[in-house]
Every structure is written in C-alpha cells, then in structure tokens.
C-alpha cells in the first residue's frame, strides 16, 4: 500500500506497469489530472488486482471521480475516527463507573461463592484426599485454618463412613458487600445429596449464611453457618 519509488522493474509489477502506460497517455492528453497511479493504489487498497480492464474503465471517469473519491475517503475516515472515539469513551466510562464496578463485584462474589459452596459440599471417600484439598482451596480465614487442622480427621471420617456427597446451589443472594474491605455476606440454599455406607444417598435442603473474603485468587468462604429450622 505504500507508494512505489518511480523507477521500478516493469516485468515484476503488472499493476504498476499498466499505471505507467496510462501515465504516458495521460500526459499526451494534456498532462492534467490523470491519476492511474491513484486508481492502481486505491484498487490495491481495496484488495483488487484486476489489471488493465478495470484500469481503463476507471480512466474514463477519472478527472471528476478522483478528488471526489479522496474527499469521500477523508469524510469516511473522519466519521470512523469519531465513532471509534465515541465507543472508546463508552468503554473508558464503563470501566470507571463505580456502580458498574460494584455490580461486577457482586456478580463475581455470586459466581465464586456459588462454586465454592458446591465444592465445600462435595466429597467422595474414594477421592477424599483431593476433595478435601479442594475444600482448602475454596476457603480462607478461620474456616480455612480449621479445615486444614482437621484435614486428617475429615479424611478418616470420609473413609470410615464411606461418605459420598454432592450439592447444587438452589438460591443464593448477597446480603452485604463491602468492596473496600473485600468482605461479603450471603444467604444460600443448597440441595445436598448425601450417602454413607449405612444410608442410601438422600436429598436434603441446606440453608446457610456465608461469610466471604476477597483473596488474590478470587472470593473464598471464610465462615459458613447452617440456619437452624
């Protein structure tokens, strides 16, 4: 798309070649506004490489069309820049909108804690070791410490009772969110399926109040309490 230097190898460049031919004719016709070069380049820009036929077609209406084409292109460029600027500002303002930041943080809390609650209610005695490691991954603070202290106890218990548990989140809502402190409280209702060696897997409902904390790896559960009913 860059303009070629005047002396160029004829054989290797057919667009340029025809351009030069036209240039010659143009000059003979009065040396005026003949711009086959422009056409050639414009066609290059449009990705077309049609050669002589197109060139000649363009040559017919050249004197009027060319400055107009340039003006139109300039106008389109200005409009494109304005549109880009407008969307750019829209992006910038969306990224710096306090409300939107809070809304996104809220959605992040819901997504992270929802996944964490499922993880925390999932264990299979056959994969207990990695399941309990997952518990540690999704918890922090006091709860995280307690769980890591009790790690062996949890493993022994799961092995002893041959526990298999899974859960899904039925309802979840953030009741408090402090973005500065990076803390949140939530209310959650879980459908839990729990089975042991002695009991068939049975569904139950678990209502929980949850405290969450923001960490370097997203939001984690720092406390969880069952609501007595």
């Amino acid at each position, binding site marked *: *798309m*860059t*303009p070629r230097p*005047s002396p160029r190898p004829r054989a290797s460049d057919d667009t340029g070649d025809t351009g030069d031919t036209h*240039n010659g004719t*143009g*000059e003979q016709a009065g*040396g005026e506004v*003949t*711009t086959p*070069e*422009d056409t*050639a*380049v*414009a066609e*290059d*820009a449009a990705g077309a490489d049609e050669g002589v036929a197109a060139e000649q077609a363009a040559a017919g209406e050249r004197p009027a069309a*060319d400055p107009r*084409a*340039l003006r139109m*292109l300039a106008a*389109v*460029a200005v409009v*494109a*820049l304005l*549109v*880009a600027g*407008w*969307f*750019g500002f*829209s*992006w910038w*303002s*969306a*990224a710096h*909108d306090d*409300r*939107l930041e*809070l*809304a*996104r943080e*809220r*959605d992040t809390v819901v997504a992270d804690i929802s996944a964490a609650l499922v993880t925390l209610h999932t264990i299979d005695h056959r994969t207990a070791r990695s399941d309990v490691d997952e518990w540690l991954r999704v918890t922090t603070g006091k709860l995280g410490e307690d769980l890591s202290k009790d790690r062996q106890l949890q493993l022994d218990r799961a092995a002893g009772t041959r526990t298999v548990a899974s859960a899904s989140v*039925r*309802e*979840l*809502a*953030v*009741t408090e*969110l402090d973005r500065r402190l990076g803390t949140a*409280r*939530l*209310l959650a*209702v879980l459908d839990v399926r729990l089975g042991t060696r002695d009991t068939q897997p049975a569904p139950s*409902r678990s*209502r929980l*109040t949850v405290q969450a904390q923001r960490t370097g790896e997203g939001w984690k559960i720092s406390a969880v309490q069952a*609501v*007595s*009913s």
Partner: protein
Amino acid sequence: MNGAGGAQRRRATIMAVLAAVIVLAAGAAVWSGLQARQLRAAGDNVALADPVATREVTRQVTGALKSIFSYDYNNLARTERAAERVLAGEAVEQYGRSFAAAKAQARDGKLVRTTTVRSLGVRSLTAQRAHLLALLDQQTLHTAGNDRQESATAVLVVTAENTGGQWKITSLTSV
C-alpha cells in the same frame, strides 16, 4: 511528468493512509464497543450497585414481611389489613392459603407470633422488579399453654414489584 506523478503519488499515499485509518478506526470501534457492552452487562441489575435503591427495597420488603408474618390471635384483622396493603398478584392467593390455616391455629392456641428478618439479600433489582432472598426468624408464644415459646426460621424467595414508589410483594415461595 515528475510533478504530476509526484502529486498523484502523494494523493495515492493519502488515500492509502485514509484507508488504513478507516480500517483501524472501525476495528477499534468494534472492539471497544464490545468491551463496553461486556462491562455494562452487569449494570442491568442494580442490586447492591445502587445503594439507595437497594436500601429502599430492602426496607420496604423487610417491613412487609414482618407485618404479614406476625400476628396476634386477638387482632388477626391487623395482619390481614397489612397483607392487603403490601401483597399483590400471585402472592395474595399464596399468602391467603397459608394464613387461613394459621388463623385457625392462632385462635385455638391463642398464639402471638413475632417475625423478624434476620437477613435479606437482593438478588436482582431493576426500576420495576426485585428478586430477594429472605431469612426469617419467628417466635411464637402459646399464651394458652403457659406462655410456651417456640422459634422457627424460614427462607423465602420473594418477588416484589414497584407500583409508584411502593414495593408490593407479588410472589412468596418458601425454600
């Protein structure tokens, strides 16, 4: 030839640059437009993000839940009046069914029930509609049975609709 060729070449350069500008600007517009849209997607739901609106719907729904789930066997009409004031749509029937049973119990056992909202989360909030999750504590006093006290908790999914500044509960589901 050199002068004309030079002018043409300059013009060619300008057009090429303009074409490049157009392509780049269009690309930038599309990219930033998509980014902005993604960033704004969360903003349709102003729960917590708009603290004033969130507090207001929380305040009104908390008051409504307290008033419709608290009763005194001596003055059941008060609770019914409250229900008429704060319930609408589907919730009227949902509540009516459960309250009919509660009323009979309340008269028989001379019950006084006090309900408080322990915690309330606004899950989604727009100008017109709110979805909430509420944790209720209920203390029931059996005045006919040595003032024996009973406590219970309940979690409710609540839908509320804004009718000219007043949030009316349109759906109540225990979960």
